[in-house]
């Protein structure tokens, strides 16, 4: 990759889906003369709203699709990029650089059972991973998704979740912290769902994305179930400005989240977190 890479490619907004009051999923289409976006689930793109700036977003769509892709964006009240992005309309143009980062090692996990755990806004890149694996279903053992959200309305991709719940080739389990009258599913933390699973620990690879307060307790349960920390993969989030390991913003000790990650094994994550917490 060269850093004409600082010059974004153009993508046109083809569709905007409202997921929750603060989150929208954008479907972007690249021009016909564009070589296309060939990505590995877990990779991200830097999206430009020209005049406002650039920010990283995980790729949420089926990686088999090369000229259209999706990303889900939460609007933060003071977001330099997310606020103007949420104001954009179908037909508007955005800049795109990528794919960037490493992605999940899905091709290395064939023959194994797959457990996917997502919390809240952690689902997008894992959604891309599920699309990838369902397209190669015979290559994997059991595929299980645990998804936790604060409320039923805070869940992303409600339609996709409905399909997966009904589908025979993936075990899709959801839970919410706080239920409402529309919800007759699980209430409680993801850890409660996890404890009910019967895993074949030594043959299971785990892919996770979500807040660290969720992930940390899950990993000790997983270790008890016999899953090695090196088989637990976490999609990390950081303030990545350049996306190509130069600007220094996402650096944690020796790791650039943008180029060494954003997917790390949990033993690496633990080391990075320990460094953070040691503080000074």
């Amino acid at each position, binding site marked *: 990759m060269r850093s004409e890479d600082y010059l974004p490619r*153009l993508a046109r907004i083809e569709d905007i889906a409202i997921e929750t009051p603060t989150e929208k999923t954008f479907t972007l289409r690249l021009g016909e003369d564009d070589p296309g976006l060939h990505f590995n689930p877990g990779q991200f793109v830097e999206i430009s709203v020209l*005049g406002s700036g*650039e920010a990283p977003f995980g790729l949420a769509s089926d990686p088999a699709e090369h000229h259209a892709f999706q990303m889900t964006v939460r609007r933060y009240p003071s977001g330099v990029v997310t606020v103007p992005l949420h104001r954009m309309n179908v037909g508007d143009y955005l800049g795109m650089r990528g794919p960037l980062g490493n992605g999940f090692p899905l091709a290395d996990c064939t023959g194994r059972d797959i457990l996917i755990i997502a919390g809240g806004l952690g689902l997008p890149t894992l959604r891309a991973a599920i699309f990838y694996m369902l397209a190669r279903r015979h290559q994997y053992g059991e595929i299980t998704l645990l998804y936790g959200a604060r409320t039923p309305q805070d869940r992303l991709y409600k339609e996709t979740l409905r399909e997966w719940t009904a589908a025979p080739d993936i075990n899709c389990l959801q839970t919410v912290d706080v239920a409402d009258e529309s919800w007759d599913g699980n209430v409680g933390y993801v850890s409660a769902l996890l404890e009910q699973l019967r895993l074949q620990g030594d043959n299971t690879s785990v892919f996770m994305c979500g807040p660290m307060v969720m992930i940390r307790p899950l990993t000790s349960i997983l270790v008890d179930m016999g899953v090695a920390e090196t088989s637990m993969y976490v999609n990390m989030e950081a303030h990545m400005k350049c996306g190509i390991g130069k600007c220094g913003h996402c650096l944690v000790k020796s790791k650039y989240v943008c180029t060494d990650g954003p997917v790390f094994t949990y033993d690496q994550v633990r080391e990075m977190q320990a460094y953070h917490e040691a503080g*000074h």
Partner: protein
Amino acid sequence: MPPTEIEVYALPAERFVAAVDRLFTLGEKIIAPTRAPRGDIFFREVDSREQMMLEGFGNSEISPAEHVRPSKEVYFSYQLRPGEPPVMTPPPAPEPFVIFGIRPCDVSAIFALDHFFLERNPRDDLYARRRRAATLIALACTEPASEACFCPCCEGGGPVAEEGFDVQLTRVGDWYIVEIASEKGERIRDLWKSLLEPATEEMLEQRAEQEEQCIEQMFSKNANIGAAVRRVSAGKVEPGTWDEIAEHCYSCGACSFICPVCTCFDVNDVDMGDKQGMRVRQVDSCRTFGYPREAAGGVRGFPTAARARMYANHKLSYDHYRERGRYGCVGCGRCVVACLGHMGMPTIARLVRKGPTAKQEGQETQA
């Protein structure tokens, strides 16, 4: 730049002026040390020899590395068009230029920048274009270039550069030793052909002696950056050290803004009105409060001490050695001058080595 065998020549001192004059026949921009009205040295574009400092000038306020990696650089300019795709235009490629009179510490810094931006994937094209256009004519130090420099304490450092330049001149008595180290340098050699003589063993011996004497006079000969590197890398820094450094830190970022080796930057879109603007990158400093700012504008708990540790870690740990081909300090001493809290790199290195109660650098070691 493939490493080539360094060719060594001698230039009689009385022909030095003629050699400098010939640079202006290259038809390239010449960046050279100039003296500002109050005596400070700045590397600026010059039109003739009269505007330049040729000898006896101290270290420049800002490193000439600035011309290779500017503190502010345009990625592209854009024009928004309603209903149509915007147009993005990268800036034109930089014209070839010569930096004359760059000191060995700054040569060493550019060596590190080359590794950081060019050798590691992905390559930084913006840097590559500018670097390709640059020819470095170094002027080795025969005496300390400032009251703060400590280059011999840094790996690859010293009053005479060993690598990284295209041409290096070292004054030895009535001669300049001229070293040619690259294809770009060979161009300068050809330009100076009729002025150059063969160098003698004696001149080189004299230079080595002179180098020793120069090191003797330096502000700090014992900054021992290497020992600090070992401690930072092993995580064996005494408790309280970062707090002590933070105690003296105003979080102004001056140390890293002025550091020729620091590479971190921020990226912003600048609206110029009329639906036009540009995206620029600007140097950024991990020592400032806002550096670890997260999406949504929040700054996570990241106290000054943690940022001091981040700075030291990025500059001094083995983890980051490979990305620069050396440690993140070349001993130019600019942070020593810039820091309001008297926490330049030699002091940081000293505290890292000896713990938070170590005396100020210079108290024991100043010659």
